[in-house]
């Protein structure tokens, strides 16, 4: 850990960085047996399975170099370092989703898919295809299972889909971490939005580009859930 530069030569010397005022830290909320540990952030840090100062060597869902953190002028930023599984931040307000974007609700990794269900039902030889009824709305939410296989796919019956444990448009009754009504995806002319419905554990969206973090933010890095504390 590197302390910040001494402000004046005449000030009392501290015992290094140990005594330095913490500007930022990440507290592990839920992870692989290291719950409660915190990581002081003082500059640039790399999180990963085998590289960097924020190491989770037992979490195979982390890429060797997974995410970059940087503290600049009192603001903390996070950026995906080209990881396989990405970095997720908890929603504070509705977030836009593009086609293919993924988000987390409880333990479920979900993907928004826009689909043109209005494809031709007539083959080249003039034969009509005898198919299931065509959905009226051109988007769906797909579950991505561990290992990358697609799971459940639910086509919207309207402009929104509510996701939760029961009596929602998409139910995950076996997920202990999802709330009864967890989040909602809305689709309109301006695109798709995902909104958390006051869930206990929150809804997370994948970080697409470098973005600032604020005090109280939560992050998923691999299986690790981290809380951001800034002073």
């Amino acid at each position: 850990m590197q302390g910040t530069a001494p402000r004046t030569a005449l000030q009392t010397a501290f015992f290094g960085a140990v005594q330095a005022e913490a500007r930022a830290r990440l507290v592990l909320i839920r992870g692989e047996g290291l719950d409660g540990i915190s990581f002081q952030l003082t500059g640039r840090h790399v999180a990963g399975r085998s590289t960097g100062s924020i190491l989770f060597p037992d979490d195979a869902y982390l890429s060797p170099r997974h995410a970059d953190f940087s503290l600049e002028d009192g603001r903390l930023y996070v950026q995906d370092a080209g990881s396989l599984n990405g970095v997720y931040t908890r929603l504070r307000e509705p977030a836009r989703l593009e086609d293919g974007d993924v988000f987390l609700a409880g333990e479920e990794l979900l993907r928004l898919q826009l689909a043109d269900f209005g494809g031709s039902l007539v083959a080249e030889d003039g034969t009509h295809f005898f198919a299931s009824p065509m959905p009226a709305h051109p988007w769906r939410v797909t579950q991505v299972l561990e290992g990358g296989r697609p799971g459940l796919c639910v086509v919207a019956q309207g402009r929104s889909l509510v996701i939760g444990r029961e009596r929602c448009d998409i139910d995950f009754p076996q997920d202990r971490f999802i709330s009864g009504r967890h989040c909602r995806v809305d689709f309109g002319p301006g695109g798709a939005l995902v909104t958390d419905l006051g869930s206990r554990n929150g809804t997370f969206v994948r970080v697409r580009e470098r973005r600032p973090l604020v005090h109280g933010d939560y992050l998923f890095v691999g299986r690790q859930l981290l809380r951001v504390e800034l002073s």
Partner: protein
Amino acid sequence: MIICPHCARDNEDHYKFCLGCGTELSKLAGAPPPPARPSVVVARAVPMPTGGVRSPQPVATALPVAAPLPVATALPVATPLPVATALPVAPARVVVGFDDAQPFDPTVDSVPGAEPPAFDVPPLSPPAFEVSVMEAPAFDTPEAGVAALAEPAGISIASPLVVPTTPGLPPASREPPPPAEAPMGRKPSEPPGVPLDPPTVPPAGRAFEDPFAEVVPRVIQVSPEAADEPPTDGPQREEPPTDQAQGVDLEDIPLPTRPPLGRAEATVVGEEPGFDLHPSLVSVVREAASRRCPACKSAVPEGFKFCGVCGSRYEPAAISTSPVLRARLVLIHPDGREGDAFDLPAGECVVGRDVGPTVFAEDPFLSPRHATFSSGPGRLSVRDEGSLNGVFLRLRDEIELMHRDLFRVGQQLLRFEDMRHVRPVVQPANDGTLVFGSPARGTWGRLAALVSVETVAHVWTLVGPQVSIGRERGDIKFPQDGFVSGAHCIVSTRQGRFFLSDQGSTNGTYLRVKGEQTLNEGDLLLLGQQLFRVVIG
């Protein structure tokens, strides 16, 4: 004298049918007979010659009946054709078809919260029709006939098709199949490899107008008159020899517009046609007297050794003994009636939009060459010819599911996917990182709803030893599909294998046929948008 235009035989002026060949002579007089409705096929006229029909309906005047029967003119049987009109029986619910024209209305044809509306199929087992006319023995005296026929209806049809769709009950009784029918329609034995003549069914007889109107099942009502059923055993056994039945005699008779044969009665056959029978019965007799002259195809009454028309010798010994299964497909109309029957020739018969009977040509959901039926010794089978929509067979027992098998539940076209063969949408990295995602929880398969050839809309995951599918109950629910039963079918897994079984659903579960599929009596086949029942005679 009227000279028959068909066989040139002289006939008395009052004859309506040619004595020699049965051609309708009244046509020459101008009055065309009412068009035969192909699906209405009750041979009610049969017992007339001996006892006269005793039914609630008045009887035609000209009947040569001695008994003092109530006489009137409005007999529906009075048409020359041996076809009965619709029986005045209350329509029965049930049966099949596909309809899209009307959205599912839960207030119609269904009990709320109960079984779905009757997009129903007749029972898998062939309905055991009982057409009393068929079974009526020859009456020795008019009195006997009258007494025996004093039933309220001259024909009593006890058909499982008429089974009410009591909610929750599986369809109909599983009666043993009716006795095999001897003559398959009017084609006792097709020469091998000769395709069927295209039936000249009036298109109006079918209700498929809009090709897109058939994408989803249609709620249908069945009339009990759907007795287009293989008639019973009996005198039809004396069918013409194979070599005499090369279809020539069919030229003047559009096959599908005729009622199936076999309605003939022994009593009629024994008569000399045309002499003392009412003209309306002559055609019955003509059909009944299936003995035909090898030379001129004229009917040869039983007991005659020479053709009365051309004098050729009649050889009754040459009866076909072909070991090949003779089978046919009985169309199940959108309104639930059983309609035309298509005889499948021995050997192979390709059907599709461009080949085979015209009923196939009118179906835009059939590929130009859709499927091949093969009738071999002791075996009837069907093979998909790489068609777009395939051939679907209604499940009887549990079957094993393989990856990408297709089956139909209600309006849904579902594809089973073995999870071991489902390709990841996120490719793993080569640095040892695992792909993050939802817990798999032992998911072993998926069911994908196909909305176009390769477009998947909805997908359900399969977890646990078995997954039930139903409209209201079950792990996978189709609350908006009125053609799915409350508890419809079950997909299950055992020892790494996968199975599908119907749960006694009203409308059945259909599996797409792969390879060469053997067919059995009573099997229900979905070809394009049409449903057929397999009848093996």
